[in-house]
């Protein structure tokens, strides 16, 4: 490749990445601007102030909301990993009657967006007295439509594992559950990592479900809380919203930068090569 081509390529890439990088920069610097300066076009606040970051915690129980989002995402991720790995393994490796029919039944979950069923699910949880609790945000993702994709990915992975590894385990006297837990699961680490990443992000981003199911501020999750920093006229308190948005985005961004290889390759790998 000639030097000229290289320079052109770098030029194109640098221009293209502006809209990908600029919003994060603008979010953080604007969060540091006092309200009087918030609409100034300066790339750096003239008098950086952390006041808005303080307001984030006094205007709403933000720490509590943070905890809600984090624990819900963690529980959903752990639950999805366990049940999707089990089901994926059984569909890939164990022969049992009705297997193919049941696999089709489970796969229908992929075809049905959760928005289609939100009205009946709302009624179901309402009659169980679970409105304004976190149960709908935990149970539906672990067992319902969102986990079907995870099951499918795990099945695709287990199909590619060499049978010889399991036979060695059987020789050593392991039963099915032992083979699954001691041999197959540890080997499935790449697939598990990918499923964990996208399950966590999906739960972390959930917006429709929280605003449908939750009504009290103490129970809110982060995405829902972010839009609630408003003044008396329902106008957004921009520097507070942007501070809260920064606090929501930055930890995940840091984890991503540290582990970007696993993130990108994991997701490319699940690649749903299907």
């Amino acid at each position, binding site marked *: 490749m000639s030097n000229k081509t290289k320079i052109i390529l770098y030029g194109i890439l640098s221009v293209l990445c502006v809209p990908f990088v600029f919003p994060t920069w603008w979010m953080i610097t*604007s969060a540091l601007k006092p309200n009087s300066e918030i609409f100034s076009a300066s790339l750096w606040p003239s008098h950086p102030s952390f006041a808005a970051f303080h307001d984030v915690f006094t205007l709403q129980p933000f720490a509590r909301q943070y905890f809600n989002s984090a624990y819900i995402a963690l529980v959903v991720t752990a639950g999805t990993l366990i049940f999707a790995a089990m089901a994926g393994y059984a569909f890939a490796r164990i022969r049992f009657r009705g297997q193919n029919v049941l696999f089709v039944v489970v796969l229908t979950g992929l075809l049905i967006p959760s928005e289609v069923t939100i009205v009946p699910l709302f009624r179901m949880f309402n009659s169980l007295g679970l409105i304004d609790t976190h149960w709908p945000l935990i149970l539906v993702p672990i067992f319902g439509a969102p986990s079907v994709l995870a099951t499918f990915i795990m099945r695709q992975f287990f199909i590619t594992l060499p049978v010889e590894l399991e036979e060695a385990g059987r020789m050593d006297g392991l039963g099915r559950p032992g083979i699954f837990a001691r041999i197959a699961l540890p080997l499935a680490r790449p697939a598990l990592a990918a499923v964990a990443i996208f399950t966590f992000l999906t739960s972390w981003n959930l917006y429709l479900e929280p605003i449908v199911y939750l009504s009290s501020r103490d129970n809110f999750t982060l995405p829902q809380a972010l839009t609630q920093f408003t003044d008396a006229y329902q106008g957004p308190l921009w520097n507070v919203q942007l501070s809260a948005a920064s606090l929501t985005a930055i930890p995940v961004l840091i984890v991503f930068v540290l582990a970007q290889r696993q993130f990108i390759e994991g997701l490319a790998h699940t690649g749903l090569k299907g």
Partner: protein
Amino acid sequence: MRPRYWTTRRRDQLTGWLFIAPQLAGTVVFVLIPLVLVVWYSLHEWNVLADSFTFIGADNYRALASDPKLGGVLRASLIFSAGLVVLNLSLALLLAVLLNQRLRGTTFFRVLFFSPVVVSLVAWTIVWRFMLQDNGGVNALLHAVGIAGPNWLRSGGTAMAAVVVVQVIKNVGLNMVLFLAALQGVPRDLYDAARTDGAPAWTTFRRITLPLISPTLLLTAIITVVGSLQVFAQIAVLTEGGPGTSTTVLVYYLYQQAFQFHAFGYGATLGVLLFVIVLALTVLQWQLRRRWVFHEQ
């Protein structure tokens, strides 16, 4: 000696059933039963505030057919989906091809283009809403080069375009990574052969690259289309469906009817409509795959 009842095969059968039991039960309780119920509810007039639940047959479907807003809603959904899919797939492919060149620092750019994928969706959307204000960052940038930008989110012509672009930049990294993986699976010797024959770059791309990555293209197209029909948070935060109904997509309309106007029966009817559209699109794309997707044999 009596043969053992718990043979390895029987034990395997039982384990198989036990392993899929949670997932299967979940699918039945949280997907299939609600799917049947949503059809049942769509045949009812059901107002939660008035506590009424009456069977009205196909009335909701008649109301749907004559709903003056439905045309606008379907139009908005169509524009959003078409715009998103076209822009997302072509930008993802462009980025993947650029990053597949033998160039230093591609990992760095890959990380940059991918990073919005991990930023919280609502946080990302809030920042863009802030930047797209009349006096926001985007117009400030435009002003610096002497262009007077419109009020992006408040004018009918630009609101939908803004929503599409915000969403494309958020998620294009995911498709880019999938395309990169596919591009790396194309055998190098095919390119070498094309170069020996003196084929121009564009011909090589069209005759070799595109056919060989077509399975990935199909899959990402399906995922992107189905995902585009589920868009909600972006609309709710950026435009609240406005101005007028220019950005009121189907899921947002469903949410308004069911959870803001408390017309649950009509909301269920819109849910059925959404399901029918998703089903039809998936079947259509699956049928098209024969024509579309290149097979090596």
